[in-house]
């Protein structure tokens, strides 16, 4: 969304039907006009053992997280950290 500080990204976490965390991070220019439309490229799956804390991922996929497990989960840590 556009604010007086520039463009920010909104990250919203929902648990138990309520929005529990909203974080904002300022983006440097993400200019919609420059977004290229590329032909579809297959995703790259790379086998690499990484510590989740230093892996710089946007989110994680793992066997189902229940609400209770969410608190300890990596996804929870990523959501709290907001945007890198």
């Amino acid at each position: 969304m556009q604010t007086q500080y520039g463009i920010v990204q909104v990250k919203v976490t929902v648990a138990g039907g309520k929005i529990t965390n909203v974080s904002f991070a300022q983006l440097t220019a993400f200019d919609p006009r420059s977004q290229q439309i590329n032909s579809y490229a297959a995703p790259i799956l790379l086998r690499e053992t990484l510590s989740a804390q230093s892996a710089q991922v946007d989110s994680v996929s793992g066997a189902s997280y229940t609400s209770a497990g969410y608190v300890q989960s990596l996804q929870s840590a990523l959501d709290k950290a907001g945007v890198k």
Partner: protein
Amino acid sequence: MGTVFSFDVREPGVDRAVVDDVVSWLHHVDRTFSTYRADSLINRLSDDPTLATPEVDEVLAACADLSAETDGFFSAYPNGTLDPSGYVKGWAIERAADLLSAAGSRNHSVVGGGDVQCVGSAAPDQPWRIGIVDPFRADQLLATVTGSDRLAVATSGTAERGAHVFDPHTHRPATALASITVVGTSLARVDALATAAFAMGPDAYAWLATREDVQAFVVDTHGATWSTGEPVPRMLYG
């Protein structure tokens, strides 16, 4: 639903109210499909099939197609009674991502219960990057998936809740594998395929290799890993 959802909107100019609307829709999905709610539409269907809505018909039709494709290893009746939850979770997240697109966002991801649907890219010229959690070590990743445009990642396994994936044929827990991650463009699809493949046990590898529109990453109970394109491991039974 007991599932936690995260919305990560990278598109500038998307109003926060859009996310509120999507959350409302997810409540609607819960009221319709939750088997934990006595008054949910899906629970009342057996007494009154005329209650079915176009949405319910769409979900049940997709479940029927997937059941046929997976030789019944994916089923809307995993324990003998109607329970399409294995499809609904991925479908709901994918639809939530589509609602955000309809509202004008071209770059966002929606995460729920360990499943991820991404649209566009994480930043200009930066694809989304999703980690696959080690089923034996929650602080460690075994692989990463990077992609743009439309990326879906779903993982089925025993790590979080114990042996909760059942083989619909035997009604016994599937235990030969620790986790299966399926990567494609549609979360509804990859979520169901991951569930079905997990229930197949050792036969999952060969079957996943025949699904040309997805990639898979498998961890067995010994910690050995396999991904699409590698030779299918021959597992010893017993």
